[in-house]
C-alpha cells in the first residue's frame, strides 16, 4: 500500500535519459546520411566530369536561399527552447510558429526546384537522363534521393514541431517539462546539419 502511494507521489521522469535517447536516434540518422555521402563521394570520384557538369545545372541561388532559410529556422527553434525556460509562452509560440513558417518556405522552394528539373526531363528513370549517360544518372539519382530523404525529414520535423506547438498552447508543455520541445529541436537541428553538407556537395562544388 505504501508503495502505491509513494509511486503516485513521485512520477518517475528522466529528462537526461530522454535526451540521450534522442541523441542515440540522431546517431543512427547521422550514420545513414554519412553512408549516402560516401556513396556520393565515391561516384563523384569515379565520374568527375559528369558530376561537374550535372552540378552546374543546379541553381546556386535557390540553394543559398534555402540554406539561409534553414539556418534561420534552426535559430528560431533554439530560441523557443530558451523562451519556454523563461516562462514566456507568447515568445515560445512565436518562435515555434516562425520555425514552421520557414520550414514551409523551404519545402515550397524545394517543390519549385524539383518541378523545374522534372520540366527539363531530369528525374530518375527519364529518357532524357538515360541519354546523358551513367554519370548524370548517378548524380541526379543521388540528388533526388538525398534531397528527397532530407525533405522527408523536414516534413517529419514539421509534424513534430506542430505537436509541440499544440502542447505549448494548451499548457501541457511548460518550463517544468520542456524535454519534448528540446528533443524536437535536436531533430530540427539535425535536419539543418545534414543540409549544411548537402548544399556544398550538390550546389557549390561544380
Amino acid at each position: 500500500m505504501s508503495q502505491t502511494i509513494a509511486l503516485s507521489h513521485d512520477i518517475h521522469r528522466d529528462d537526461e535519459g530522454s535526451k540521450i535517447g534522442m541523441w542515440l536516434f540522431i546517431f543512427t540518422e547521422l550514420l545513414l546520411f554519412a553512408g549516402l555521402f560516401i556513396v556520393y563521394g565515391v561516384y563523384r570520384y569515379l565520374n568527375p566530369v559528369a558530376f561537374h557538369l550535372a552540378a552546374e545545372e543546379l541553381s546556386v541561388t535557390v540553394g543559398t536561399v534555402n540554406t539561409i532559410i534553414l539556418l534561420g529556422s534552426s535559430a528560431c527553434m533554439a530560441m523557443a527552447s530558451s523562451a519556454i525556460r523563461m516562462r514566456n509562452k507568447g515568445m515560445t509560440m512565436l518562435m515555434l510558429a516562425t520555425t514552421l513558417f520557414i520550414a514551409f518556405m523551404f519545402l515550397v522552394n524545394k517543390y519549385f526546384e524539383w518541378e523545374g528539373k522534372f520540366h527539363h526531363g531530369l528525374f530518375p528513370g527519364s529518357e532524357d537522363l538515360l541519354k546523358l549517360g551513367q554519370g548524370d544518372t548517378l548524380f541526379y539519382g543521388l540528388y533526388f534521393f538525398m534531397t528527397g530523404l532530407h525533405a522527408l525529414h523536414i516534413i517529419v520535423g514539421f509534424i513534430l514541431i506542430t505537436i509541440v506547438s499544440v502542447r505549448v498552447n494548451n499548457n501541457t508543455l511548460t518550463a517544468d517539462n520542456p524535454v519534448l520541445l528540446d528533443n524536437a529541436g535536436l531533430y530540427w537541428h539535425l535536419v539543418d546539419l545534414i543540409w549544411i553538407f548537402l548544399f556544398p556537395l550538390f550546389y557549390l562544388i561544380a
Partner: protein
Amino acid sequence: MENHNEPHIVPFKTYGIILAVLVVLTLISVAVTQIDLASLTVFTAILLATIKSGLVLVYFMHLKFDNKLLKALVSAVFILIALVMFVTFLDYNYR
C-alpha cells in the same frame, strides 16, 4: 525535481550571433566556390561546412552546456564517420 532544473538558459543574443556567423560562412563558401581554386575548392567548401556544423552542434544543439558523456558520444560518432570516409577514399585513391 533537480532533474527538471536547467542550469543554463541560453540568451537569444547568443543564438542571434551564431546565426549571423552561420549566414556569413554560407555566403563566404558560395563566394569562394565561384572562383576557381581547382582542388582547393572542394577542400574549402567542406572545411566551411564542417565549421558550420560544429557551430550548430555546440550552440543550437546545446552541446556546450551538456554533460561530458554526451560530448564524448557525439565526438566519437563524428570521429567514426571521419575514419570510415578516410579509409574509403584511401582505398579508392590507391587501388
